[in-house]
């Protein structure tokens, strides 16, 4: 029996039929989009939806006659979608990071666009950001949230098809987004580039995710909801709100990819950066804090340092982040008072953020010998440190006079990558190295030495990247504001570009190291599943609690 047979064999024939109907309806919607939009580039996306949903429909159809699942599925955790999610996350990681190295190299050597329209910087850059944030980060969040909510609730996911719908539907969104950029389809909103039809599809997927998560929590057999779930819930709820409000737009017609936002002028900018900054807050922070709060104590085998600190930082982060977006628009047409609010709330946000990082690091008290010996735990420790560094840097850069120097420079890019590489990617790798052997019931990872190699490649890559961008960003900022004694600007813009050249090369090299590390990680995870014997003595998860009679 191959993997697909086994996974589909978990579904009853009724569920298989229902899944087939979902695939059929989606495929028809794709066909309709393609037909209505046959004179527009959107036709390609209609075709993509048709092939994607049709492909899964075909898989189901050929296996519709498999025997019914045996035993009571309610007594076991539902791990198949998690395994698929981890696989997809790692595939997106390699794709997204490769695109990142490519666009970084283009900045040093512009000829690497090879004179193609699709391969210009403007089109490739969002494939990098969407690939790593939504492809890698999003799949990692969906997979780990499915794992954490089941284990900490002692309940199986509240659905057989919906976890698959969420995971695969989400990946269809990512594919539509990334392929759209290459075709020139974009809303021109940073981190929200995907067009209206992809956005509508994501709303359906995300609401399903929300309901699935809530229903699973409602099934829990633990009296309290664990902190990690607070963060995952915040991530799911707020991302839904952000996504819907920022993407309110009117398409030119049902057959056109292009749409126009309903927000006018500076309000559009404000809504966009309210979205953009809270995407950082609730996608790249809250969700990954959920990961940290589960896998770090599990790996360290230590209790969380302080429950009270968890409460303080959770509510601090969720409340203050909501106000901080306007710090992206300092010294613009946005009214001065909105900028002040964004700045001050960004600074008040610092303490709750550091409380999270501190809570994680203090949890390691009593386990520092493990941090020394175990690269997996060290990944998570380093992630907490980078989380602390980048949240401090974020509050600092949000202060208007500081922002006057840093805005529009590579310093911003360095800051984002201190967070994205140092925090988001490191906590994900640490969590995956903890999760993969457990999920596939293996004794250990295939090679502890390769985890070490991955760790040091990641650290070296991140440091090279971040230091290169700090240097180039500050040099840029200073060059742009240097005046001669005659009161004239000392440098032209192109002078500052020439000064960036060595840093752009260093940045591409740092990114390359990080990419190589991710590829090593993929190999190690693959070999763990392929070649490591099944665990015999590992302490098992606590079982799913028995359902209360009458339910």
């Amino acid at each position, binding site marked *: 029996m191959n993997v697909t047979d086994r996974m589909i064999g978990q579904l009853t024939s009724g569920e298989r039929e229902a899944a087939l109907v979902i695939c059929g309806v989606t495929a028809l919607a794709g066909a309709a989009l393609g037909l209505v939009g046959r004179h527009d580039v959107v036709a390609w996306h209609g075709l993509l939806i048709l092939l994607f949903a049709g492909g899964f429909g075909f898989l189901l159809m050929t296996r519709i006659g498999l025997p019914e699942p045996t035993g009571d599925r309610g007594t076991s955790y539902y791990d198949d979608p998690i395994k698929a999610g981890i696989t997809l996350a790692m595939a997106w990681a390699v794709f997204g990071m490769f695109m990142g190295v490519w666009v970084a190299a283009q900045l040093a050597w512009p000829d690497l666009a090879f004179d193609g329209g699709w391969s210009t910087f403007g089109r490739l850059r969002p494939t990098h950001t969407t690939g790593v944030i939504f492809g890698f980060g999003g799949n990692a969040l969906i997979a780990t949230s499915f794992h954490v909510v089941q284990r900490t609730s002692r309940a199986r996911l509240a659905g057989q098809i919906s976890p698959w719908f969420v995971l695969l539907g989400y990946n269809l969104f990512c594919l539509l987004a990334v392929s759209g950029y290459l075709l020139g389809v974009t809303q021109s909103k940073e981190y929200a580039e995907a067009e209206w039809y992809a956005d509508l599809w994501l709303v359906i997927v995300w609401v399903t995710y929300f309901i699935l998560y809530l229903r699973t929590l409602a099934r829990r057999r633990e009296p309290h909801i664990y902190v990690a779930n607070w963060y995952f819930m915040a991530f799911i709820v707020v991302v839904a709100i952000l996504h819907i409000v920022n993407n309110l737009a009117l398409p030119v017609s049902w057959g056109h990819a292009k749409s126009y936002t309903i927000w006018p002028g500076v309000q559009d900018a404000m809504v966009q950066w309210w979205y953009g900054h809270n995407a950082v807050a609730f996608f790249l922070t809250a969700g990954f804090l959920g990961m940290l709060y589960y896998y770090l104590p599990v790996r360290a085998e230590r209790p969380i340092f302080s429950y009270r*600190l968890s409460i303080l930082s959770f509510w601090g982060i969720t409340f203050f982040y909501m106000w901080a977006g306007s710090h992206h628009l300092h010294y613009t047409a946005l*009214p001065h008072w909105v900028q002040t609010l964004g700045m001050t709330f960004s*600074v008040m946000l610092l303490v709750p953020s550091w409380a999270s990082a501190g809570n994680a690091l203090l949890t390691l008290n009593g386990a520092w010998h493990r941090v020394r010996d175990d690269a997996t735990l060290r990944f998570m420790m380093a992630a907490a440190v980078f989380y602390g560094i980048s949240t401090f840097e974020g509050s600092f850069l949000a202060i208007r006079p500081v922002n006057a120097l840093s805005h529009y420079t590579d310093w911003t890019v360095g800051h984002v990558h201190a967070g994205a590489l140092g925090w988001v990617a490191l906590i994900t790798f640490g969590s995956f190295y903890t999760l993969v052997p457990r999920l596939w019931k293996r004794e250990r990872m295939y090679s502890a030495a390769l985890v070490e190699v991955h760790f040091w490649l990641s650290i070296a890559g991140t440091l090279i990247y971040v230091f290169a961008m700090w240097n180039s960003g500050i040099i840029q900022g200073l060059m742009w504001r240097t005046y001669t004694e005659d009161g004239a600007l000392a440098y032209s813009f192109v002078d500052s570009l020439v000064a960036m050249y060595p840093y752009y090369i260093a940045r591409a090299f740092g990114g390359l190291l990080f990419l190589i590390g991710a590829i090593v990680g993929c190999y190690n995870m693959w070999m763990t599943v392929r070649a490591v014997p099944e665990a015999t003595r590992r302490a098992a998860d606590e079982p799913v609690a028995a359902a209360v009679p009458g339910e």
Partner: protein
Amino acid sequence: MEVKERDPVTGRQTTGHEWNGIKELDTPVPRGVLIFLIVTHIWAIAWWFLVPSWPIGTTYTKGFLGVDQHTTVEQSIVQGQAERAPWTERVVAEPYETILADTALMQTVRSAGGQLFGDNCAACHGRDASGRAGYPDLTDDDWLWGGEPETIEQTLRLGINAAHPDSRIAQMPAFGRDQMLERTQIHDVAAFVFSLSNPDYSTEETVDRIASGREVFAASCAACHGDAGEGIADIGAPNLTDDRWVYGGDMETIIASVHGGRQGHMPTWDERMTDAEIRTLSLYVHDLGMRRP
């Protein structure tokens, strides 16, 4: 069901909750966190009192400092202009020859002009102003419209084939595409033009073509490029006898120029730059040409 334990490492009690083996300690929030929290809040509240911050209905709190970003920008623009005034006023008011004779002022012009050139001109003419195919070299002594500061200023203000109503117009007709010359005539005239800057090209084999090309030139080209092919700066017609070329001086490019015509474009900068900036750039570009003969 809730069992509180004491953690041997920290000596703290757990909360008694447990999730799949994860426990949490009941450690109070450290005093440092609370102090730091208060400090950041005081900092924020201080800003709210000092600068515009909270909306009230259709207006907002103005802050005791009375700062507003619009007035700050206006003030800094005025201040910047005042700092530059000692030399910009002279650049605008004084004749070019006076400025060129003033070494100290020219030093300032070179520095400020370099930045203006880098931000506005380098995209086409190159960072070192040496041009590339289709964009003239500004560092030599060969000028399409004249290399004196006054004529450069005219070119900057009006542009070439630009949107300005008095734009300089320079059009090399498409003699081949528009069927004004036969194919052989084009090849002949190209051979003649090529021979002007390459005397060695005239051999027994080519002498006939060059001769008939000379006739074509006299009939169709001399009106703009002059009888001797040395160009006319008043109408922007280039000198064809030297080794400086806008589009390229090889035979193939000359044929392409004659066949398809040429219509270079230089934007007008009249509305986009101040008088001081235009005159600084005129001096800067003139000075570039002076540096390399």
